[in-house]
């Protein structure tokens, strides 16, 4: 077995060095994305065939500027590199650097070298060297840095085979550190060395300086006698950083030549426009408008297609399969359930497409720069813009994206208000209700009323997020210095392959993650709607027959009466009836009540629930969900259930309510306390109820 064991290769590097492109080049689509146990840091592992029949697990570690961790993403890197017993502990580390930022990128490299793991230096973006007038003396650099160097361009796919060949030679790669950082305080480090002769000196230093979760015992033991005050440690870390930069500067003075006469600087021209005090904002809002417009317009056709396909599939199943419970489950539970999941794909894919293009191109950092001062007035950071924009796809990755906000207060506020942004799970709810209650008309010949309503709902989401942030900023008493350091990466044309893989991975994760819940809930709902206690449900046909005795009634009407009698007295019907008094002031009947309850864990379940409820007992299944909802009337008054007032009330309810268990879970994880998700739930859902109530009472 040992001969077939895969070797472990870790990809390490600063953000914006094209590390993920290298990962994609090495592994293709052969990757698995998961989470590290207990934390929500994304874990990406891929597989790669190397020369000589060697197979490798490629681990794409989160981007980090150094081994001085300041976020849980970065902790992951240190924890793995310090733990030799981890089954992913690398046999060889690839430090990916950007040839244009070699100086800064090498800082991390020198730290990794101190861990005495075989390390290859990957100099990426080599295609930019001529453009920027950069030339490198590779043999000199290899000698000084005590490593092997692969010069590649992950963008053009150059040098990937050479890199693979180099990885195979890992047992021969030097594990010697390239500089001696302990000279910053020789006395201290000598004592440390004497006390722990079997341990790596740099590892000890990291254990002392970092708040890494693991090795607690070991750390207490080490810290006991070697404690230093926080400011002493920071001073030493500064000295260490200076020492490393001195070494790097010396090496690059010889090993790297930059001909500034040749270098072209297109980026600074672009910066002048994109961060312009007027045009910068115009461009930003134009881009946002394009994104939202295309999500609604572009996704419409495939969504309608999916909707009608599943409606006809459902009726096909009930026609062709032998009648019985199993057929009902398939045609009324499972097929509408799956349809309710798949209908998401177009919009989510569009959103992730735009977000990954903005991030890949380097434009997102300019937005952060442009918006910081404005956002700070509301207690947010310029970096909050990224979560707020990603929140339009899904609040979960958005909340995780707050990790690079340095100030705890700004970060906490961002986490708390992000769920107000219109996430893609709200879209199907909005889409169907807008289609029902807002006329499909154009005003002034160009503005589509339905599209405008959606745009307003997006603005409402952002507006509420910003306003809540302002309030929270006044209420929360959190002291602490606010730091803000943001790298402004070079502009790059987004790589199709990276964007495509990102879109596929994110959509897949979302659809499967949400899909499991939706499918399970659909089946449970179907069961609860098809069964009920007592004679009102079980003898529905007799009761209806009794009721219409002697009256002329067609067979279809008769069957429909039975079906609605059954639904009303089924388990789910009784649940809906129970909460009806609470929700009827909002304009909802018990069927909507069921949908509100079942979508408590995930908003997108709303549409699926209504689909299931209206399908149960329905004799002709080919109608779409929309038409079925359109036809719903209040049996007492004959008025439409989905009218303007109840529609607006529902839209507002879903705009504000915290109907997402996953968001609550991720808030708990990121804030390490139940207090904040509880506050989110109470505040958001309370606000939703009040606003929906007011809207319905005013409009009805």
């Amino acid at each position, binding site marked *: 077995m040992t001969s077939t064991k895969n070797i472990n290769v870790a990809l390490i590097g600063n953000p914006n060095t094209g590390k993920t492109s290298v990962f994609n080049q090495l592994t293709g689509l052969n990757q698995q994305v998961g989470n590290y146990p207990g934390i929500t840091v994304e874990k990406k592992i891929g597989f790669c065939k190397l020369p000589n029949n060697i197979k490798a697990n490629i681990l794409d570690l989160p981007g980090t500027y150094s081994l001085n961790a300041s976020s849980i993403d970065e902790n992951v890197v240190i924890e793995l590199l310090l733990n030799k017993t981890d089954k992913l502990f690398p046999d060889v580390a690839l430090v990916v650097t950007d040839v244009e930022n070699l100086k800064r990128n090498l800082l991390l490299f020198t730290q990794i070298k101190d861990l005495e793991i075989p390390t290859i230096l990957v100099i990426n973006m080599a295609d930019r060297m001529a453009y920027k007038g950069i030339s490198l003396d590779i043999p000199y650099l290899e000698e000084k840095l005590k490593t092997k160097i692969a010069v590649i361009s992950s963008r053009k796919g150059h040098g990937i085979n050479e890199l693979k060949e180099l990885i195979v030679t890992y047992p021969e790669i030097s594990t010697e550190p390239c500089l001696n950082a302990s000279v910053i305080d020789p006395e201290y480090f000598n004592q440390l060395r004497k006390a722990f002769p079997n341990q790596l000196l740099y590892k000890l230093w990291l254990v002392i300086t970092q708040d890494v979760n693991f090795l607690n015992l070991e750390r207490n033991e080490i810290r006991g006698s070697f404690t230093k005050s926080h400011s002493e440690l*920071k001073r030493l870390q500064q000295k260490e950083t200076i020492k490393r930069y001195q070494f790097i500067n010396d090496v690059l003075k010889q090993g790297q030549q930059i001909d500034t006469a040749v270098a072209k600087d297109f980026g600074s021209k672009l910066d002048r426009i994109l961060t312009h005090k007027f045009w910068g904002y115009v461009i930003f809002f134009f881009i946002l408008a394009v994104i939202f417009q295309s999500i609604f317009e572009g996704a419409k056709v495939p969504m309608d297609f999916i909707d009608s396909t599943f409606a006809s599939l459902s009726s096909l199943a009930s026609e062709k399969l032998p009648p019985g419970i199993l057929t009902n489950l398939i045609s009324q539970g499972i097929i509408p359930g799956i349809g309710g999941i798949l209908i998401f794909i177009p919009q989510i894919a569009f959103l992730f497409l735009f977000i990954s293009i903005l991030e890949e191109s380097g434009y997102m950092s300019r937005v952060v720069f442009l918006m910081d001062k404005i956002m700070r007035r509301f207690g947010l950071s310029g970096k909050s813009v990224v979560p707020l924009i990603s929140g339009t796809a899904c609040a979960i990755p958005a909340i995780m994206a707050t990790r690079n906000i340095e100030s705890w207060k700004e970060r906490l506020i961002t986490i708390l208000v992000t769920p107000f942004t219109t996430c893609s799970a709200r879209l199907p709810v909005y889409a169907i209700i807008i289609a029902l209650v807002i006329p499909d008309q154009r005003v002034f010949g160009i503005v589509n009323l339905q599209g405008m309503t959606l745009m307003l709902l997006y603005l409402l989401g952002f507006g509420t997020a910003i306003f809540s942030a302002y309030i929270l900023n006044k209420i929360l008493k959190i002291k602490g210095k606010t730091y803000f350091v943001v790298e402004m990466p070079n502009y790059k044309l987004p790589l199709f392959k990276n964007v495509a893989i990102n879109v596929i991975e994110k959509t897949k994760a979302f659809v499967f993650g949400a899909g499991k819940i939706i499918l399970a809930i659909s089946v449970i709902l179907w069961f609860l709607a098809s069964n009920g206690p007592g004679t009102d449900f079980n003898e529905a046909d007799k009761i209806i027959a009794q009721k219409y005795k002697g009256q002329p009634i067609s067979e279809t009407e008769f069957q429909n009466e039975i079906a609605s009698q059954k639904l009303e007295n089924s388990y789910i019907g009784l649940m809906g009836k129970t909460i009806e008094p609470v929700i009827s002031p909002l304009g909802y009947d018990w069927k909507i009540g069921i949908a509100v309850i079942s979508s408590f864990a995930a908003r997108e379940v709303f549409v699926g629930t209504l689909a299931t409820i209206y399908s149960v007992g329905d004799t002709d299944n080919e109608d779409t969900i929309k038409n079925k909802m359109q036809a719903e009337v209040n049996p007492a008054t004959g008025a439409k259930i989905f009218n303007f007032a109840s529609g607006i009330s529902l839209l507002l309810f879903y705009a504000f309510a915290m109907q997402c268990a996953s968001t609550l879970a991720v808030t708990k994880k990121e804030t390490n306390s139940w207090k904040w998700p509880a506050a989110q739930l109470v505040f958001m859902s309370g606000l939703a109820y009040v606003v929906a109530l007011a809207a319905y009472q005013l409009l009805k």
Partner: protein
Amino acid sequence: MQPTIASLKKGEKAIIREFDVEAIPLKLLEMGCLPGNMVELLQIAPFGDPLYLNVNGAHVAIRLETAREIEVDLLKTDF
């Protein structure tokens, strides 16, 4: 008064002097914002804050409050 990064004009270059480590985030040091290195002010955001710098070849943006903590010696630009 000793100039700081905050008092630079757009396009001006300077050399970073010794500063109080406590006031500066470690991340900024790691980006190459260290005593003796060169800093150039590339852009000022609308409303005067944050500042977009080239420090030791790295492009970073920092807030005014941090920039005020970093004293510099101006480099005379030759024309």
